């Protein structure tokens, strides 16, 4: 049974038809990269799957409708809108969102932080963290309740190089984790080739879905990014799109 499933999923916001007839299945323990150009509806698809925005068609996540499997999904939103002046420490934040599975104690929080290489941040104020440190904390928060599904919406966007590296190190570790399915929105095709077991290409409609090495052809990439786009991949030098 698929972990995530969508059938003819459509999203219209303020008269704009953002997603059209999207259908796919995601099986357990896959790492799925969601790719597409800016404004193609990637974040909208993620939000529909999380039950944050209305949609038509059908969708199921962890065996229930979107929005129902609370506490079983870890989520890192894109460009988290957060007031850095709020007097919240990392401990406060982890405690605030801890569910039954991680009933809050310092040892549990410390384990979460150790896992993402953020050992000494527990007592620090969120507003005092660097971009990379903040991203580590967000990742620890997403993993805190031992989720079955991890959804990362461009986690490395707007992060310094250190923060970006951290994400990919963590992703590497998660690849070997049992029982965890990951959906990752990314602009970086090298990330797709390196970490993804499946790729979902979206440009308002579903352009391709499958194993990256098989479905990311010059034609599908051209459909996604336009036929003028050029992509050089160090391990796949033939992967160049042009007119």
């Amino acid at each position, binding site marked *: 049974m698929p972990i995530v499933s969508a059938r003819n999923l459509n999203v219209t916001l*303020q008269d704009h038809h953002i997603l059209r007839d999207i259908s796919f299945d995601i099986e357990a323990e896959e790492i799925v990269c969601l790719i597409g150009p800016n404004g193609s509806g990637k974040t909208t698809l993620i*939000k529909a799957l*999380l*039950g*944050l925005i209305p949609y038509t068609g059908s969708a199921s996540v962890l065996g229930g409708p979107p*929005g129902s499997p*609370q*506490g079983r*999904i870890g*989520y890192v*939103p894109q460009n*988290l*809108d*957060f*007031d850095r*002046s*709020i*007097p*919240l*420490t990392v*401990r*406060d*934040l982890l405690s*605030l*969102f801890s*569910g039954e599975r991680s009933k809050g104690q310092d040892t549990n929080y410390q384990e979460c932080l150790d896992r993402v290489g953020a050992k000494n941040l527990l007592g620090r*104020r969120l507003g005092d963290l660097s971009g990379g440190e903040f991203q580590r904390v967000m990742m620890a*928060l997403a993993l805190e309740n031992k989720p079955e599904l991890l959804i990362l919406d461009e986690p490395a966007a707007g992060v310094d190089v250190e923060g970006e590296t951290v994400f990919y190190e963590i992703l590497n570790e998660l690849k070997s984790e049992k029982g965890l399915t990951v959906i990752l929105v990314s602009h970086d095709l090298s990330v797709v080739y390196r970490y993804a077991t499946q790729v979902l290409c979206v440009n308002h409609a579903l352009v391709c879905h499958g194993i990256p090495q098989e479905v990311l052809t010059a034609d599908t990439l051209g459909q996604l990014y336009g036929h003028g786009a050029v992509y050089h991949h160090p391990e796949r030098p033939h992967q160049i799109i042009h007119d």
Partner: protein
Amino acid sequence: MLDLVLYPLSQPFFLRALITGALLAIAASFIGVFVVLKKMSFFGDAVGHFAFTGIALGFLFKVDPILAAIVFSVMVAIGVGYLEQRTTLSLDTTIGIFFSGAAALGIFLIGLLRGYRADLFQYLFGDILAITRQDVIMAAALVIFTLIIMYFAWRPLLQITFNRDLAQVNGVRVKAWEYAYLVLLAIVTAVSIKTVGILLVTALLIVPAAAAKQAAKNVQQLLTLTIAVSVLSVFFGLMGSYYWNTASGPAIILMSLLFFILSLVW
């Protein structure tokens, strides 16, 4: 020196004022923390004006003005929340529309009342020294009600304040808690009006929490310091008001402003 403090406390009217003021300060602190964290100062100010219109309605239809203020403020606060979610208008634009509409309606209704209504001024500026036993009981009931609601609301409201989407994914019923908060804000504001007045009720919601936010290292400290600043402002404000023979509301707010200034140089 001690006599200067003890003498007013021996007067029943002053003791009633102090107890009522301190109780309202505690209720306002729980609400004020989120007014400041969620950047809702304009909304807090607007609710004061909604309550003003409610009071005018109370006078016009000869029902208890505070009860009318509570009902009208709650209705309009829910209306603002509903419109903000159902239209593309920003929250501050929606509040601005209701704010000016409510103020205009309030002034219009007062114009319909016969004669000069000096008793309306009590609600504009507050008169904590005219507090009755019934007012003390009402303030105590308000604190108990606020504490019960906030016992359940504190964690979800903090999650929503951090990030609405994350809160919802974590199972928080975001809209329900946001409406519950708006209702509580409207009730606390309307009940506090008799004590500190419409013009100053917003300040009681905002200034102590803003002062506490400068010094707090975490949210527990933020709440504790907000309550401390509020209650101390009421205490010293009332003492000042007693000895200098001035209106109690402004004295309380000026005292909280002093705490805010101190927090800036902390």
